[in-house]
C-alpha cells in the first residue's frame, strides 16, 4: 500500500511538473507575442472540423485553444519534434550525445522530490503528505541537484563537437557555478532564519506571517531579491541567457540537438523556472497559506484548495520571470560575472551575517 501511495504521489507530482512546464511554454510563446505586439500562434486547431459527432462537441473548445495558440505550442510542436530526424554530429558518441538532455532534465525532476505540493490530508486512515521524499536535508538536496544540473549543459556542449556549443557550455557552466555560491549562501540565510531544512516545516512556520514580511522576518526582502536574481541566472534565462545567445552562438550548448532531445532541454528549462517559482513561493510567500484565512487541517478539500493557492502563486512567479525575460536586454558576459561575484555574493554574505546576528539575539522564527 505504501508503495502504491508513493507511485501515485510520484505520478501526480510528475503531472504537476509537466502541467507547469506546458503552461510556461504557452506563456512563453503567446505572452512574448503579446509583449512584442505580435499576434503569435493562432492558426493550428482553428480550422479543425471533425466529421465524428462525438468529437464535434469539442470543436468550440479546440477553436478557442487554437486561437489562443495552445494547440500549436503544446500539441503540434510536440508532434513535430517527435517526428523530426534525430541528428547526431560526427565524431561524438551517440550515448554521450543522448546523455546531455537526459542530464538536463533529471536533476530538475529529482529536485521536485522534496517539494511539498499540498498540506497533509487523510484518506482511508493514511495521512498523506504530498511530497515524494521527506529528507532531513530538504533544502540542501535542491542545492545538490542544482549543482548536478551543470552536467547536462557540459555534456551537451562537449558532444556538440562544435565551437559554438563548447563556448555556450563553458559560459553556462561558469555562470551556473558562479551563481550557485550566492544561491547556497542565500539558502543558508533562509535555513538560519527558519531553523529547519524541511520545506514542509518552513511552510508551516509561515502560517502566522509570510517570509517576505519585514516585520516578521527582517532580512527577508534582501534574501528574496538575491534569490530571485540568482534563480533567473541559474535557469539561464531572462537577461542572463548568454549561454544560448542566438546572435553570438547560434543556440549555445544545444545547437547540435534536434527533435525530442531539443524538446527535453526545453522541458528541463521550464521545469526549472517552475521549480524556482515554487522555491520562492515556499520560502517567502507562505506556500499554500492564504493571509488571514486558516484552512482546516487534514481534510482532502483543504489540501486541494491549498494546492490551488500554491499553484496560483507559482504561476504568478513563472509569468513574472517570463515577462522579465522578454522585457530586459541581455547582459554582457563580464557584467554578469561582476554581478555574481562582486554584487550578489558579498550581498548574500552580508545578509547572512545580519541574519545570524538576529538569530543570535533570539529571533529564530520556528
Amino acid at each position, binding site marked *: 500500500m505504501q508503495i502504491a501511495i508513493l507511485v501515485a504521489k510520484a505520478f501526480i507530482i510528475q503531472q504537476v511538473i509537466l502541467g507547469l512546464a506546458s503552461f510556461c511554454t504557452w506563456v512563453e510563446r503567446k505572452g512574448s507575442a503579446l509583449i512584442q505586439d505580435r499576434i503569435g500562434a493562432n492558426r493550428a486547431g482553428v480550422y479543425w472540423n471533425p466529421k465524428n459527432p462525438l468529437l464535434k462537441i469539442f470543436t468550440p473548445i479546440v477553436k478557442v485553444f487554437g486561437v489562443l495558440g495552445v494547440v500549436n505550442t503544446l500539441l503540434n510542436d510536440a508532434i513535430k519534434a517527435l517526428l523530426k530526424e534525430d541528428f547526431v554530429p560526427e565524431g561524438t558518441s551517440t550515448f554521450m550525445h543522448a546523455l546531455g538532455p537526459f542530464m538536463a532534465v533529471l536533476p530538475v525532476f529529482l529536485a521536485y522530490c522534496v517539494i511539498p505540493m499540498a498540506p497533509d490530508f487523510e484518506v482511508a486512515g493514511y495521512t498523506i503528505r504530498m511530497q515524494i521524499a521527506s529528507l*532531513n536535508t530538504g533544502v*540542501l538536496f535542491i542545492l*545538490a541537484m*542544482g*549543482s548536478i544540473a*551543470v552536467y547536462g549543459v557540459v555534456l551537451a*556542449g*562537449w558532444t556538440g563537437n562544435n565551437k559554438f556549443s563548447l563556448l555556450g557550455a563553458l559560459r553556462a*557552466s561558469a555562470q551556473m557555478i558562479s551563481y550557485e555560491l550566492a544561491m547556497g549562501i542565500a539558502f543558508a540565510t533562509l535555513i538560519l532564519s527558519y531553523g529547519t531544512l524541511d520545506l514542509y516545516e518552513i511552510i508551516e512556520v509561515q502560517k502566522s506571517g509570510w517570509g517576505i514580511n519585514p516585520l516578521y522576518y527582517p532580512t527577508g526582502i534582501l534574501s528574496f531579491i538575491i534569490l530571485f536574481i540568482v534563480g533567473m541566472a541559474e535557469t539561464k534565462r531572462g537577461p542572463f541567457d548568454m549561454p544560448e545567445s542566438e546572435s553570438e552562438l547560434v543556440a549555445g550548448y544545444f545547437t547540435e540537438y534536434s527533435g525530442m532531445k531539443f524538446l527535453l532541454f526545453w522541458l528541463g528549462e521550464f521545469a526549472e523556472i517552475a521549480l524556482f517559482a515554487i522555491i520562492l513561493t515556499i520560502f517567502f510567500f507562505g506556500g499554500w497559506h492564504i493571509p488571514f484565512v486558516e484552512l482546516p487541517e487534514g481534510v482532502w478539500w483543504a489540501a486541494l484548495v491549498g494546492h490551488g493557492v500554491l499553484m496560483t502563486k507559482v504561476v504568478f512567479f513563472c509569468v513574472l520571470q517570463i515577462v522579465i525575460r522578454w522585457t530586459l536586454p541581455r547582459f554582457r558576459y563580464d557584467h554578469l560575472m561582476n554581478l555574481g561575484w562582486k554584487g550578489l555574493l558579498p550581498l548574500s554574505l552580508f545578509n547572512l551575517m545580519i541574519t545570524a546576528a538576529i538569530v543570535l539575539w533570539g529571533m529564530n522564527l520556528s
Partner: protein
Amino acid sequence: METIVFYLLAASIVFTGVAVVAMRNPIHSALALVCNLIGVAAIFASLQAHFLATVQVIVYAGAIMVLVIFVIMLLNIKEEKPARERFLLLGGVVLAGFAFFVALSFVFLHQFQVTPELTDEITGSVANIGRVLFTKYVFPFEAASLLIMAAIVGSIMIAKTKRREVS
C-alpha cells in the same frame, strides 16, 4: 531490503570504479567517476549520514568533478597511449593488492571476532553534524577554511598566465 540495496549500490560502485580505470577516454572516466561518487553518496545515505550524502553530491559531483570535466574539455585531452610496462605494473599492483586484501581480511575476521553491528544512536543529520562541527571541532573547521583560502590563492597563482609585457 537493506541488503539488496547495499549489494546493488556496491555493485554499481565497483563497476563504475573499474570503468574509471579502464576507460580510455578521460571524459568517460570522469563521467564514470561521477556515477561512482553519487553511488558513494547513496551509501552514505544508507548509513544515515544524510548531511554527508548531500555534501558529497554538492562538493564532489557538483564542484570537483565539474572542474575536472571542465579541464578535460578546455585542454581537449584525447585518448592516451597505454603505458608500455602496464602489465608489469598491473602484476605488481595485483600482488600488493592481494597481500593487502589478505592482511585486512585477517583484521576484519580475526581482530573483530564477532561481526560488528551498526548502531543507530546518533545519525549524521544536519543538526547533529552542525552541532559537533561548531563545538568540538570548531578549530579544525576554521583551519579548513584557511586551507581552502590558501588553495584558492595557490591555484590562481599557478594557473594564471603571465601577463604579457606591454611594449
